[in-house]
């Protein structure tokens, strides 16, 4: 697989949130505004890239039997670094993300990438993988946050986008709106996928192949 493919797979095809449904806790909790989603995305991407690279560099040093605790310590170290950096340089984001910054440690995406990718691949592919997955996650968070912020308070990144007469639905920025938005998005993705499958089945070339394959398999 080329480096570009390692990077691009995380954005759509294996999007960690929409396709693999990992890391759902922060995606529901902090998506009340687009600026929160972007802040979380950047913090998350930073931790993912750093931990992916370090774990990949140390993959031959860490004994197999204690790899999970070692990964957790490495990830926790980077989370602490990001936590302190945010506290120092953007206290507003730090305040609004609150407890979900230290909770990046238990975000299953990071441990999942360490286990599934970084401990089998070199440093540079791991960097690309982390970057792609991080951007994919940020994008997914931003989509959810955009829907919730626009419908819930009628603004985007704080700027009003809905006409003043439009009644905003406060429920979208309350907890139920988070579940509703993510459920709706996953439903739409399934719908698109089912359509694609149906189109493929109607494709004559494919059905011919199936016809050829059938007698072969029955033999």
């Amino acid at each position, binding site marked *: 697989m080329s480096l570009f493919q390692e990077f691009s797979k995380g954005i759509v095809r294996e999007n960690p949130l929409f396709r693999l449904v990992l890391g759902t806790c922060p995606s529901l909790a902090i998506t009340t505004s687009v600026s929160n989603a972007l802040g979380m995305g950047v913090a998350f991407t930073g931790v993912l890239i750093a931990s992916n690279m370090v774990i990949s560099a140390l993959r031959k040093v860490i004994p197999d039997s204690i790899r999970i605790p070692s990964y957790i310590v490495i990830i*926790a170290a980077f989370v602490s670094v990001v936590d*302190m950096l945010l506290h120092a340089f953007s206290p507003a984001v730090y305040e609004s993300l609150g407890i979900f910054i230290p909770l990046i440690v238990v975000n299953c995406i990071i441990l999942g990438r360490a286990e599934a990718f970084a401990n089998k691949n070199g440093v540079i592919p791991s960097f690309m993988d982390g970057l792609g997955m991080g951007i994919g996650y940020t994008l997914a968070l931003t989509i959810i946050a955009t829907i919730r912020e626009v419908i819930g308070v009628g603004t985007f990144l704080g700027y009003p986008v809905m006409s003043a007469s439009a009644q905003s639905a406060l429920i979208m920025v309350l907890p*139920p709106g988070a579940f509703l938005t993510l459920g709706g998005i996953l439903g739409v993705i399934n719908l698109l996928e089912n359509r694609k499958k149906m189109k493929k089945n109607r494709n004559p070339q494919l059905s011919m192949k199936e016809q050829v394959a059938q007698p072969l398999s029955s033999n």
Partner: protein
Amino acid sequence: MREMIIIIISAVLINNIVLSQFLGICPFLGVSKKLSSAIGMGVAVIFVLTLSSLLTWLVQVFILDKLGIGYLQTIAFILIIAALVQFVEMVMKKNTPDLYKALGIYLPLITTNCAVLGVAIINIQKSYTVMQTLANSFGNGVGFTLALILFAGIRERLEEADIPESLDGLPIALITAALMSISFLGFTGLL
């Protein structure tokens, strides 16, 4: 005593850990397909949550704060939780094999349950005393179990319902959770 009861009620109903604080969503969606496994997971979480909160509180107050190394909180807490879960698993296996059989498979999952780390950090942030910490973590565990069991009950019914194909599975589960969350909003003015 009154204060303890208020903390517990607030943790179980008003600020429900799953439905209004979004901690522990992974097991909430993953282990809620069957009522029996939901009960098992819930009991395991109550147990580990209370124990780990007590332990992390002691470490924070008597080690991290004393030595002025509060910035190591995240690393220290996650290690304590991981070690505690392993330890509980070993003790259970040896002394109460029946209980181990019932809860054993849920224990390793708890390490990555953000509810456990989340509650431990919240206890420190709100500078609770040791009794308040115990009440808050027990209440949060019960709140998690309550939400999980209710949700599992609904999902068992959903299995037999006629759901549009593209909403089947996770999407309808999340929409159900949204409705449950709306009903829990009704507890807001309770205290």
